[in-house]
């Protein structure tokens, strides 16, 4: 397992360097930050002054070297807009996004397994149909629409939860509900499919004929075998949440990394975009290792290869 992790790290380092180079140049293709920062009618002299203050007039290769060498000192540069270290800004925003992502995935996986198994027990039954339709609907409903609708109903009309903002647990109810819908719907579909396949496998028949209680057949034999596709989909979804949820963070005013990144891109705050991408890449890399390890734990065929 140790060698496996090391090999993955070496691979990821190469991709990470490629990514860093790409992001550095791509973000600069969007234009000059001076155009966005200064008043609309600022003079050319003011524009030049801004570019000089922030060292954007230096040759691109010098700027790149400064950024690249900084990476090895864990210095990701200073935000143009906020005048403080970009890494600090990104790391400040990360816990909120990770908490959102973690809770969302936890609820989605548990909910999806229960619903999916439930539906798979009697495929094409009424319950299966209802769950299928609901999970399809929740997987395809646009986040922002659901968010605004839930705010109108539960925060404005019924007044049982806050509209937005961050604070006690009650502030997490709406954002997590909205965020959970899509992965829950998708995962429930995957669980259902995998379980239907597993339940028709010969070992299930064997287990049943041996008199193993149905509950054990369902949750021990079948679910364990169905867990690989579930893990793949859950992993995919979780990785998608790592860089935050722009829509949810923007609507609910959550200080997460998704909103931070969108703002940084729109304001051409290069250092923050770079720091965000680098840190996100590292987190995704760690996530992928975790997922691989989980594969190995779940499936002895992978472990013994």
């Amino acid at each position, binding site marked *: 397992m140790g060698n496996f992790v090391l090999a993955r790290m070496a691979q990821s380092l190469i991709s990470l360097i490629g990514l860093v180079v790409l992001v550095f140049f791509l973000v600069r293709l969007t234009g000059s930050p001076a155009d966005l920062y200064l008043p609309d009618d600022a003079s050319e002299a003011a524009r030049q002054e801004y570019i000089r203050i922030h060292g954007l007039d230096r040759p691109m290769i010098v700027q790149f070297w400064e950024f690249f060498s900084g990476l090895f000192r864990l210095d990701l540069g200073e935000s143009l807009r906020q005048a403080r270290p970009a890494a600090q800004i990104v790391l400040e925003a990360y816990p*909120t996004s990770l908490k959102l992502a973690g809770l969302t995935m936890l609820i989605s996986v548990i909910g999806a397994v229960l619903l999916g198994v439930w539906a798979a027990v009697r495929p094409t039954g009424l319950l299966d149909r209802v769950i299928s339709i609901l999970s399809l609907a929740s997987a395809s409903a646009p986040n922002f629409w659901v968010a*605004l609708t839930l705010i109108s109903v539960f925060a404005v009309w019924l007044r049982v939860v806050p509209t937005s903002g961050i604070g006690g647990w*009650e502030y997490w109810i709406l954002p997590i509900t909205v965020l959970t819908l899509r992965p829950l719907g998708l995962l429930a579909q995957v669980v259902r499919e995998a379980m239907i396949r597993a339940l028709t496998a010969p070992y299930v028949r064997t287990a049943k004929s041996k008199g193993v209680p149905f509950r054990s057949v369902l949750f021990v034999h079948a679910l364990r075998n169905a867990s690989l596709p579930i893990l793949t989909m859950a992993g995919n979804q979780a990785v998608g949440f790592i860089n935050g949820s722009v829509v949810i963070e923007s609507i609910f005013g959550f200080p997460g990394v998704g909103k931070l990144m969108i703002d940084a891109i729109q304001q051409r705050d290069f250092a923050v975009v770079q720091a965000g991408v680098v840190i996100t890449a590292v987190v995704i890399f760690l996530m992928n290792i975790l997922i691989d390890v989980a594969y190995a734990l779940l499936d002895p065929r992978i472990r013994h290869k």
Partner: protein
Amino acid sequence: MSFAERISQMGDRLGTPVLAAAIIAVSMGVAPVAAQPAEGEIVIVQSSEPPNIDPGNFDYSQTGPILRQNVIETLTLLDLSDSSLQPRLATAWEQVDDTTYRYTLREGVTFHDGAPFNADAVVYSVERLFNTDLEQIARNKYWDHMTFTAEAIDEFTVEFSLSQAEPVFDTRLSQVPIVSPNTPFDALTRAPVGTGPYTLAEWQAGVQIVLERNPDYWGDQPEVERATFVFRGEGSVRASMVEVGEADFTFSVPEELATTGMDVAYQNFETIYFILGAWEAPLDDLRVRMAVNLAIDREALLGTILPAETVLGTAIIGPSISGSNPDLVPHPYDPDRVTELLEEARADGVDVDREITVMYINDRFPGSNELVEAMALMLQAAGFNARMELVESGVYREYRDEPRGEDRAVILLSRHDNDKGDAGFSLTRHLCDSNRNPICLPELDEMIQTALATPQGPEREAAWQEVVRFMHEDVQVDAVIGHQVAFARIGPRISYDVSGKNPSTFLIEEVTFN
């Protein structure tokens, strides 16, 4: 009974009733309701968080409402309802000669950090503002064309020496932030220290900025003890927050939601207009520009694409700005006259059939995309070969500013903020040496130069009114649509008068509890 049967039975038993019970339980108040502002506290919800709150950047629309006059004060206060100046940290001021001004400072004032407010503090504030290694929007915006220095004459008298004559120096100086001498000279600060009625208590990045009442304020103690600024990008969420009492005030709710008794329309000192690209044919011909102006059915835009409260305009300065001309009327909609003008121009060899592109930046303001669509359609209906094109801000600027991009005939949707009380802040763009001037007319240039050099007073106002008339009737490079309104929502706990105020200022000291 099989497990499957048991499960589905359980589902039948529990499914709907459980959900219904949960909703009812929650709605009966079992779950907590959102925090409401405490007594003496108000919550203001803004559309975005300021990236930084350095005093020199209090011209940012996000930073202004928090800092301006609340934390950081200025020597004088510009009253936008009549463009007059009121004493703030200065008690008196006079012009000594063309390039020298003398200000008498208020005594007995201290900064929040305990430093005394005196002439040296003003000198420091001016030097910091003009430190060109530090980005200061307040410098870029008002002192692009000149500089000035400050000198302490005695403890409470400051003399300003200008690099050139500037008749509206007093007005410009009202936009200079006065900061504590302990403010870092070479770096932006995240902890601004001023003399205002409120001190910065907390900035929780991404969450809120909290101001607390300054018990040592030199003026009257305001009613509000604590003001919390929070940030929500979605207009309907801002509106909802005030509606349910989580917030007391927001400067902007979407027009379609501004239907409750809490919503107030106010002039936001922004004027919507189209820049007619007079540097290219056929718009270099006055008759064609007149035809464009007469092809716009401005009345039809009100209450449809623009709020009905929008005031149709004749210049890019609003009616309360010194220099606006009350004798002028907006261009009427006159399709017959458009046809005549275009035929006349065509007969003289003007290429009136050349394609004209109405260029715009996406979602510049509410309804802006629809306005461009309507403009293109109205021009087509009037016989122009018009189309619309969405561009990125860099491309837009390539056409708006000199040196200009490829030769195309363009009309650019634009919006101008004119919240500084004098037409000079707006109309200098029509000077020949401005890189934003669509056309250089020596006669207009001379009129603007004269107005700029005229001292403040009725004569200056008359000079600007004449410039405005000339531009409206004989130049027509701006197709002015109207002076915008925005909608604020004010919660039932407080009273605050938004009229005659710039949305980049929110005077907490004027807020009273009901």
